[in-house]
């Protein structure tokens, strides 16, 4: 009995892609078709759902808001994590291991714990419903993650490289910017990717800290019913569009992530 080599992976991919196919399938259907009949592909193919999202500001602003705070968060997290990770990878100081672990424990805490204090606090300082509020809130989870990933990549660079640079006459900052950062671009790519993804999919804090001006797409999508009843086709289209940025980013960092796995981080 010779079973074809491609059989198992093919089945695996089919099962994996099924929900995504179904989402895309629904996004091209009318809500009536979705609720009325079971069809494997759209009987009445329509782009109406997408047109609505791209023309209605309450929809497309959700995307703009999400992208804004996600990019803010990624930039803040990575630029803050770089020097922190360098310190953890290069220096020994009292309690360094405990501090490193403590940073990681922040990543383990459930966001719900922080939702209420954050809400109260951000309201008090007038940051409620701003993009930076969500970006800063996500830093709590993303900076430890970025430090952890970057530390792994940095420790893979021998410290003799630093010393050679100093001997050659580089000052610390010149070395850090000209030599060290280019050396660990893979790590920065991976760290930025994970920050991006986490911030992109996080709903609870983003929803709690915003109302109108900075409302993220995920929050908009939780609005399932409108005056015209259920709009499942529209939600499916919004969901499909939500997948795209992640897929786009992962395409660029796919090789780096493999490297990150090899280093035991990620």
């Amino acid at each position, binding site marked *: 009995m010779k079973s074809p080599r491609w059989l198992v992976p093919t089945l695996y991919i089919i099962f994996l892609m099924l929900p995504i196919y179904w989402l895309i399938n629904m996004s091209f259907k009318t809500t009536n078709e979705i609720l009325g009949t079971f069809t494997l592909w759209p009987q009445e193919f329509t782009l109406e759902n997408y047109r609505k999202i791209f023309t209605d500001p309450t929809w497309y602003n959700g995307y703009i808001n999400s992208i804004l705070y996600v990019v803010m968060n990624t930039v803040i997290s990575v630029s803050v994590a770089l020097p922190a990770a360098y310190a953890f990878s290069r220096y020994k100081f009292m309690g360094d291991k405990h501090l490193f672990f403590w940073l990681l424990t922040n990543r383990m805490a459930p966001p719900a714990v922080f939702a209420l204090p954050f809400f109260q606090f951000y309201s008090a300082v007038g940051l409620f419903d701003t993009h930076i509020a969500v970006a800063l809130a996500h830093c709590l989870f993303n900076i430890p993650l970025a430090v952890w990933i970057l530390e792994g990549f940095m420790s893979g660079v021998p410290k003799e490289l630093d010393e*050679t640079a100093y001997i050659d006459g*580089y000052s610390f900052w010149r070395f850090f910017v000209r030599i060290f950062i280019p050396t660990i671009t893979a790590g920065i790519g991976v760290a930025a990717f994970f920050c991006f993804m986490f911030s992109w999919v996080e709903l609870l804090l983003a929803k709690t800290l915003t109302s109108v001006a900075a409302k993220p797409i995920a929050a908009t999508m939780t609005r399932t019913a409108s005056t015209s009843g259920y709009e499942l086709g529209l939600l499916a289209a919004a969901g499909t569009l939500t997948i795209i940025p992640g897929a786009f980013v992962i395409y660029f960092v796919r090789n780096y992530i493999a490297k990150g796995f090899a280093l035991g981080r990620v």
Partner: protein
Amino acid sequence: MSLELRQIIKKEGPETHIYSTSLTLKTGVFNVLLGPTLAGKTTLMRLMAGLEQPTSGEIWFNGNNVTGMAVQKRNVAMVYQQFINYPNLDVFQNIASPLKLQKITKADITQRVNEVASLLGLNTMLKRMTQELSGGQQQRVALARALVKQADLILLDEPLANLDYKLREELREELPKLFSGSNTTVIYATTEPTEALLLGGYTATLHEGSITQYGPTHEVYRQPDNIQSAIEFSDPPLNIINIRKQADTLVAQDSSWTSDNGLAQIKDGDYALAFRPHHLQIKADSTSSLGLDFKGQVELAEINGSETLLHMQVDGKRWVSQLHGVHKFEEGEQISLTVDTRNCFVFDSSGQPVR
């Protein structure tokens, strides 16, 4: 124009890595730092480079006290055992990097880099990234970067240890030529006595954080100042036997001899008799004695092509004999050995040479 260490001590927490060391290194020759792993070679080099600061003591360079001076301000170069190059720069930029940080015109940089690159046989690969090169080529790039800087002090920390045999021989031959004629102080750390002998120049032997001897390499090899230097400068390891001289007899744990043959003039007392493995020969018959005879029990015979390294037990100690040609021995076989006392070092109980 020289590098001088004055009573340097380096402590790391409760551990002392370098005990009080004073040393003035010769300029314009190859200075070899010889010692086993953990003897403190790397620490000493890092202190010389300024990558670490001594706990106490001073470092003087060309008549200036450079203790505590930032490494960027010192005109030094260093090559490590690992192949350290800037991975984001190509070979040309790697070699040029120390020059770019000085105020040197572009044309001068290009000229100097090309000179050094052709000296090291790198001129065809200047546009390649360093990770694409073989280990030997990568280390050549690192050497070129050290050379192009025309530093006053060049530190080579076991630069050939990670290379394979052929490349190591090739580069070892080139190294003294590359630095000859310049006014630089070159320091080369190695664990291998053979390497020190091949490189020539001056050698400092290091033992557990102290320099035991410094002098012209062959002098250190032939006239060790103490038993530690002799042990370090011997590969295969030195054979040592503890003896007691009483009147005209020499007594060891299991054997005794009459002390004619060159050992007659030393005073009565306890000594360590030491000689190198190639001086220990098989005694074929009773007439072929060279002076001192021993009985041994064979443990292992290693044959490396044209030589046999014979490991044995003599007088409760492990000895090695380096014999020419291929010889077969059985494990546990009893053998007679002989050594000429003129080839023996005699150290007193404090490790000082007696003659």
